[in-house]
């Protein structure tokens, strides 16, 4: 079966910033994204956990999106300000998809 090379972008971002990130993605002309919850984590700023009525500050969510390889650099540039100034971790990997035209 024919497979097409795409990029999988995974962004770990603080919950209060999610809406802003999604706004950037909407403007950046990506075909779609999926947001996954996270329940705990640790980093340079210490550890956090989702349980209890904590504020959204310090809690992470994960945004996953499949993009075409051409679109990846532009996307990186668009979200760079968010990354340099605020807490977000972006990683990009190579994936193969079945219906390549939809991304």
């Amino acid at each position, binding site marked *: 079966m024919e497979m097409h090379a795409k990029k999988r972008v995974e962004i770990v971002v*603080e*919950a*209060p*910033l999610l809406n*802003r990130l999604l706004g950037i993605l909407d403007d950046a002309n990506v075909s779609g994204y999926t947001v996954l919850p996270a329940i705990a984590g640790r980093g340079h*700023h*210490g*550890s956090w*956990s*989702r*349980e*209890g*009525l*904590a*504020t*959204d*500050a*310090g809690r992470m969510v994960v945004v996953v999106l499949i993009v075409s390889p051409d679109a990846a650099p532009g996307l990186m540039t668009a979200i760079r300000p968010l990354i340099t*100034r*605020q*807490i977000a971790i972006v990683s990009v990997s190579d994936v193969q998809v079945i219906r390549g035209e939809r991304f």
Partner: protein
Amino acid sequence: MSDVLSLATQNLLSPMVLFFALGLLAALAKSDLVVPEAIAKGLALYLMMAIGFKGGAQVAASGVSARMVATILSGIALSLLIPCLAFLLLRLTSRLSAIDAAATAAHYGSISIVTFIASTQALQSMGLDYEGYLVAVAAGMEAPAILVALLIARRYSDCAGDEPLGRMLREVAGNSSVVMLIGAFIIGWITGARGYEMIKPFIGDLFLGVLCLFLLDMGLIAGRGLREGRRQLSAPVILFGLYMPLVSAALTLPVCWLLGLSTGGSTLLLTLAASASYIAVPAAMRLALPEANASIYLTLSLGITFPFNLTLGIPTYVWIARSVIGS
């Protein structure tokens, strides 16, 4: 003085405060006791629905007055003034950077609705009434302090400059607790005593029990916050978390007197001024001032000021209001 002591003891031995203490201890002892996030949010929705509705139903009974409008405006004024004072005190007494101080100051200008609710409950157990519209005052005091903090931060730092103020304010004003409080308040107002009768078994009878469970959760997250963040706090900052509520209350006392609030109403306005936000404002600060260190303001507000208000603060405000306003 023996009056304030007996008030404090009675408050400290209430199921409410004891469940908070249980949570605090469990978290400090690293127990795996947790309240699931969804349950905590559900309990918070319930508490805001109940307190808002009851406030509205009371206003339906007592009618609107010029005093109501004046109190709301005074609340807003206080929440604009207090962050300035908090910023100055932090800068004078601690080594916090301007950004950190501004972000922290915003929390003290805003309010903690759970502290407010605990205060209404303490009043009720003493048989003291309060003006129903103080719920609306609480809602009105949630957001303005954020504006002040951003203006302060902009004076001191250029990196804090790219967030449109209007958008920030709109986001905070439309935040869930403001909408739920005001919404339930208006519904209580419209449906009045008849509406209240219909849902009283839910929002009335269960209230204190639900509050106990919720305070258990607050204790758990306050304890976790302390365990995680205590090393971030210097002595002057911790002290600030303890005296700032009293400073705010002192500033508010003449306002209560001028407004002619009842003893119960005065206690609540003092409580609002003295309490610090730990839900809405931290999230807003992550957006607006991400350079500020979240551990500082979160640990201070949730781990120091909230427990202080819940245990010693509220009886103090009752006692002040009683002494000055009369009972």
